[in-house]
C-alpha cells in the first residue's frame, strides 16, 4: 500500500487553546488509488493535506504516524521532511492561482526549483515539455510570467510542476473551486490521466464538491469536524451510504456540479461543533436525526463490510 496514516492528530494553536482540526485520522491508500476527500469547509481536510507535506506553526503535531511506501514520514520534523517533499509527496495547493512567483519567468522558476533540489533541469526538460503537451499548454508558457496566463492555464501549469518528479503521493487541495464547470472537469480528468500514466502513484483529491468525485475517485472518504466518518469505494458509498452525515450529504446533492461552500449544508440543520472544545462522543450527534444515548461515547471507525469503514454506533447495529 502507498500511504498509511495511524491516528494522526494535528491541532492549530490559538490563544484560547488548541483547535482540534484533525483529531485522529487512520486510513490506508492503495497504490494507484484516487481517494476523494470530502466534507464541509473547516472539517480538517486541508489540514490533513498540509500536515502530510508542510506542517508549520500555528499547526502543531500532536501524535500519529504516517508511512509512505513502507517508509516513515517524519512530518513533525521540518528538516528531515524536506527530502521527502516533492520527490515522494507533493501538493497542488488551494492557492494555485498565486503559487508561482509573479516576477520570474515560469521556466526559469522551474529550473531554479529543480536545481535547488539537486536535480539537473536539463534531464527533466523533455519530460516537462511532454507534460505540457498533455495538459494542452504550449511550450511558450515557460518563457512567460504567471500574470500572462489565464486561471485555468495557471492551474494546469502548477499541476505539471507539482507532479514533475513523479511523487508517490500527490494531493490536490480544492483545485477546482476557482474554475468554471467545464475547466473543472478537464483538470480533474488530466489528474486521472497522470495517475494512469504512472506519473503519480496515488492521489488524494480534496473537495467540498462531492459530485466531482463520482467521476474520478476510486474511493471516497468523508470527514466531519476533524474526524473521518466514512470511507468506502465510490460506488459503494454513493449507492449505500451508511453514516447519517454521508447520507445527508449525498441526498442533499440536487445535481452534478452543485457546490457546498461556506458554513452549513442545506438540508442539514445546525452547524458543525466548535473544534476548540468539541463535544464528547460522536461529533455529529447534535445534528443527527438518529441520535441516541450511546452517541455520547466516541464511535470507533470500523470496517462494516470489506473496504467500507464507518464511525457510527447506529450503523454497527444495522449491519450486524
Amino acid at each position: 500500500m502507498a500511504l498509511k496514516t495511524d491516528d494522526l492528530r494535528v491541532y492549530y494553536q490559538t490563544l484560547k487553546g488548541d483547535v482540534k482540526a484533525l483529531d485522529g485520522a487512520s486510513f490506508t491508500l492503495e497504490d494507484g488509488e484516487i481517494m476523494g476527500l470530502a466534507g464541509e469547509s473547516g472539517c480538517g481536510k486541508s489540514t490533513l493535506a498540509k500536515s502530510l507535506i508542510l506542517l508549520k506553526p500555528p499547526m502543531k503535531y500532536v501524535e500519529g504516524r504516517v508511512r509512505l511506501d513502507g517508509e516513515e514520514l517524519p512530518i513533525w520534523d521540518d528538516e528531515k521532511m524536506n527530502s521527502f517533499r516533492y520527490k515522494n509527496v507533493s501538493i497542488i495547493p488551494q492557492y494555485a492561482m498565486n503559487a508561482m512567483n509573479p516576477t520570474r519567468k515560469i521556466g526559469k522558476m522551474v529550473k531554479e526549483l529543480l536545481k535547488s533540489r539537486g536535480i539537473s533541469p536539463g534531464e527533466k526538460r523533455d519530460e516537462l515539455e511532454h507534460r505540457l503537451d498533455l495538459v494542452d499548454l504550449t511550450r511558450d508558457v515557460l518563457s512567460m510570467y504567471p500574470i500572462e496566463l489565464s486561471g485555468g492555464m495557471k492551474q494546469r501549469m502548477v499541476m505539471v510542476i507539482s507532479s514533475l518528479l513523479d511523487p508517490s503521493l500527490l494531493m490536490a487541495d480544492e483545485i477546482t473551486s476557482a474554475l468554471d464547470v467545464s475547466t473543472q472537469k478537464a483538470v480533474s480528468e488530466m489528474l486521472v490521466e497522470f495517475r494512469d500514466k504512472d506519473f503519480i502513484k496515488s492521489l488524494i483529491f480534496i473537495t467540498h464538491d462531492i459530485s466531482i468525485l463520482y467521476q474520478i475517485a476510486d474511493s471516497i472518504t468523508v470527514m466531519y469536524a476533524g474526524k473521518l466518518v466514512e470511507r468506502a469505494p465510490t460506488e459503494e458509498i454513493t449507492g449505500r451510504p451508511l453514516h447519517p452525515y454521508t447520507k445527508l450529504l449525498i441526498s442533499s446533492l440536487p445535481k452534478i456540479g452543485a457546490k457546498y461552500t461556506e458554513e452549513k449544508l442545506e438540508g442539514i440543520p445546525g452547524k458543525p461543533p466548535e473544534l476548540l472544545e468539541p463535544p464528547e462522543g460522536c461529533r455529529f450527534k447534535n445534528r443527527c436525526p438518529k441520535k441516541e444515548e450511546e452517541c455520547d461515547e466516541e464511535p470507533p471507525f470500523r470496517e462494516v463490510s470489506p473496504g467500507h469503514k464507518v464511525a457510527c454506533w447506529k450503523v454497527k447495529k444495522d449491519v450486524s
Partner: protein
Amino acid sequence: MEPPQSKEKNEFFYFALRNNKLVIGLIVVFFFLVFAIIGPFLTEHDLNERAGPRNQPPSAEYWFGTTTFGQDVFTQFVYGLRAAFIVGLVGGGLATIVGMMVGFFAGYHGGMVDELLNMLTNTVITIPKLAVLLVIAAYLTVRGVIHESIVIGLWSWPWAARAVRSQTFSLKSRNFIDMARMTGMSSMKIIWTEIAPNMMSYLFMTFVLQFGGAVLAAATLDFIGLGPTEGISLGLMMQHSFNWSAIQLGIWWWFVPPGAALALLVGAMYLMNVGLDEVFNPKLRER
C-alpha cells in the same frame, strides 16, 4: 482549513499588551506627553529670560544647563516639546483628515473621480514638501507654530490619501458594501457607517506616521531658519545652538536634548506603528 478567527476585543488587547514594540512606543510617547504637559510647571524661569550665568553645564540648579545667553535649556526644552506635540497633532491630524477624505472619495467612487484625485495626489507627492514650505515660509514675515502646522498638514496629505485609497478599494469589494448600497444608502452614509469603522485601525496607524513626519518636517524647517518667529521649538533650539557655535564651543547640552527628544519621540511613533501592524495583522507576528 484556517483556524477559526476570533474577533473579540480582548484578543486585541492580549496581543497589544504582549507586543513589545507597541508597549515600548506607547510608554515613550506617554512619557514625553506628560513631560510636555507638566514640564513648564517645574521651571520657574521664563523662556528667554536670562536665568543664570552663560554656558553652564547641567547642574542641580540648571538641569539641562544654560545657553550662551544664560537662558535655561530645560525651560526651552519643555516648551519646545509642547510645540512638537502641537505640530504633530495639528499637522499630522490635518494631513490625516484631508488624506482620508481624498482617499475615501477616490477609492469609493473610482472612475473619473479616482483618476483626477489620484493624479492630484501623485503630483503633490512628487514635489518635495520642504521645498514648498520653504518658499511659503520665506514670504511670511510673522510665523507661529500653528501656521507652520497648518502649512505642513496641507502638504502632507498625499501619503495618507494613497494609503486610505487602497484600503477603501479592498474594503469596497467586500459584500457588506453592496448590501448597504442595495438598501439605498447614500455614499456619505456608506463611507461613515460601513467603511470608516473598518478602517479605524488603519487610520490610526496613518495618523501615527503623519504625526512623526510633521514633527520632523517642522524641525527641519525651523533649523533652516524658517521656523516660528516667536516662541521656541526643538528645531529652533538646534538652530540657535548651531548659530552660536555650540558645536565649536562644545556646549553639547544645548543641542543634544532637542534632537534626542525628536528622535526618541518620532522613533517611538514608528515603533508603535509597526507594533500596531503586527497586532492587527496576525501574519506579521513573531514566530
